[in-house]
């Protein structure tokens, strides 16, 4: 029954669980934490596609998350736009900025790309922090509206909000699944493998990298927009590097470059850190080492670890089967030789 650990089954299991979760518990707090975790997952998926499938680690992810959040907030609170229109526009704005920044930053590679984007992220943060007249500066923005009704569907209870976010998460997972399992996904992996090689087999690496970068920022923006309308208050700290590191941590612990990693990592870290709340000031004394140990012992993340384990198990089974086959062969060989002896 270990087949539940297959990526596909794991995701299916998660979806099922997520859908019935509010029926199992009517604990508002858990639903709140879960909703937040879902929002993070969307952002993690965005980073996963970029870092996990093309090998470009962007440390500006929180910046784009913040851009999504601020766009939505400003368009609704300051420009007075209707919620869903602002929502769509926020995604477009984030993606466009992603396009521009991608065009410049993707000229660098590896560590340089990582640190370049770290700086870009920092610049985004500083701009939000300093541009008082637009963003409210350090004070942040309050009074952000929650999601508006869609026809008869309203989103003013925690549970309806939960399902709305879940809907977007599932959409994200579906899109990711399809991208990764398509020719487009193969193209991305080819770039991660070797950009030079990809280029020589006729793949325009710049176009494709740019595409992934924009998709990745799109999902960061989506998560940001959902975050803003869920917490309904935002300050510049959501664009700070720490948030990028959190997102990255979820990804690494879950398993970078795997489809279930973002879900697994986020759930685990979010709940572990909630569970450690009783330690209060000393929470990080435990959480820090746990994080370090996880990375040391599960370098491919938890999903990757499970995959490896599955693989080993299969390998073992195959070997066992081979052994059995061999034994049988030997047996039959003995039989034939015995038969031959008889005949002889």
């Amino acid at each position, binding site marked *: 029954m270990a087949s539940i650990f297959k990526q596909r089954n794991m995701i299916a299991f998660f979806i099922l669980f997520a859908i019935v979760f509010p029926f199992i518990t009517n604990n508002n707090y858990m639903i709140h934490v879960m909703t937040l975790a879902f929002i993070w997952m969307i952002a993690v998926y965005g980073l996963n596609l970029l870092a996990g499938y093309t090998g470009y680690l962007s440390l500006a992810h929180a910046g784009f998350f913040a851009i999504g959040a601020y766009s939505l907030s400003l368009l609704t609170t300051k420009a007075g736009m209707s919620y869903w229109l602002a929502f769509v526009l926020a995604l477009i704005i984030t993606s466009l900025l992603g396009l521009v920044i991608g065009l410049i930053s993707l000229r660098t590679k590896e560590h340089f790309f990582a640190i370049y984007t770290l700086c870009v992220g920092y610049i985004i943060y500083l701009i939000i922090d300093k541009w008082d007249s637009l963003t409210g500066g350090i004070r942040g923005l309050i009074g952000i509206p929650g999601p508006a009704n869609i026809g008869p569907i309203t989103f003013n209870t925690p549970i309806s909000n939960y399902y709305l976010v879940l809907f977007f998460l599932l959409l994200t997972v579906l899109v990711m699944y399809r991208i990764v399992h398509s020719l487009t996904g193969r193209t991305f992996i080819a770039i991660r493998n070797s950009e030079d090689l990809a280029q020589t087999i006729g793949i325009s690496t710049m176009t494709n990298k740019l595409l992934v970068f924009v998709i990745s920022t799109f999902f960061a923006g989506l998560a940001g927009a959902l975050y803003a309308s869920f917490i309904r208050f935002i300050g510049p700290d959501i664009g700070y590097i720490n948030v990028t590191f959190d997102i990255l941590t979820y990804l690494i612990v879950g398993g970078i470059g795997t489809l279930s990693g973002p879900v697994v990592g986020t759930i685990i870290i979010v709940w572990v850190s*909630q569970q450690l709340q009783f330690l209060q000031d000393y929470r990080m004394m435990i959480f820090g080492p746990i994080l370090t140990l996880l990375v040391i012992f599960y370098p491919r993340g938890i999903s990757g670890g499970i995959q490896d384990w599955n693989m080993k198990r299969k390998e073992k089974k195959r070997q066992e089967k081979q052994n059995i086959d061999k034994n049988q062969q030997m047996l039959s060989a003995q039989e034939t030789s015995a038969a031959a002896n008889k005949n002889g």
Partner: protein
Amino acid sequence: ACSGGGSESTSGGDSGGSDSGSGGEGTVNVGYTGPLSGPAAFYGERTLNGVKMAAEEINEAGGIDIDGKKFKINVVSLDDKYLPNEAGSNAKRLVQENNTPIIFTPHSGGIFALQVFNQVDNFLIGAYSSEPKITEAGNELTVRIPPRYDGYLAPFTTYQMERFGKKIAFLPTASQYGKDWAEALEPYWEEQGGEVVYNSAIDFTKDTDFFTIITNALKEKPDVLFVGGASEPTAKVVKQARELGFEGGFIIMDQAKLDEMKRVTGDYEMLEGSIGVMPLVDSDEAAVPDYVKKYNEKYGEDPGSEAGLNYIGMWAFAKAMEAANSVDDPAKIRDHMQDGLDNLPDHVKIYDIPSIGDDGGFESTLIVGAIEDGKVVPIPAE
């Protein structure tokens, strides 16, 4: 999957909420969410200390008396790392699992995040922030504990203009609070015929050395410097300004405390000509010396206003519960806050807070102190 959590800092069951129990005893959980780890932890801990100390005193005195039934206070505190979203999760958790009628939080981001749902989830916010917006939004279950800072503008300005002159340079901390102060002080200073010759903020969490910015400010030859933020870095700013040859006065915004600054500068001499909030330890309210002694015994340092105001705030909430005859109806408790303030025992009155405004803010009497000849002297505020 998730039960318990939170830490119980005072004795009492964790059965949560206004557990009516069987006998004459019950427990009421009071929530706290604030930065208990990370760079702002020192601040979070001091605010929490105030709440805890009050809770312990109340419990020692028998608890909250509701119709003869005694309720012990149990403070459940959670760490939010200064982040609004974490504060939100914590509040949900406190309400859900500990049934807390009141949640204290010492940062405006957290307050804003809580205000989104506190009226629906039905809990009071013990808001420790002088940000005006938290009470302007019309949230009916928010109580602002610290005084608004507007009241300081007049005494500070008058004093410094008379003593040093009309040119001022602004060097507050780059926090929201610092900005608010600067934005309020600037027009007032100018109205009084003064001139703001330099205006920029110092980010204590990002700047290693303040020499650069102070040099730039002093280039404009100000008579007065407006500084502030956490006491210790503020003191460093003062010290470095002196090193760079500044001889004028300082307006110290209320987050920084003169006495705490003295610990950094070594003596009051360097602070000569400063005006700021009267240190709690130097206040002449009758209850202060005892309180300071007790606090010192418990936490090994002099209390500042973060601890003091939260302490008195907790007491006021407890008394309001008694007056409201309820430990679990936030609206009712809020309605009886004035009674709570009125009924404060004398030994608790380390600040003079005669009333609570319609907006939910405590209206304290301001106490202002200045350094003259190496000593703190009280300055009349009104």
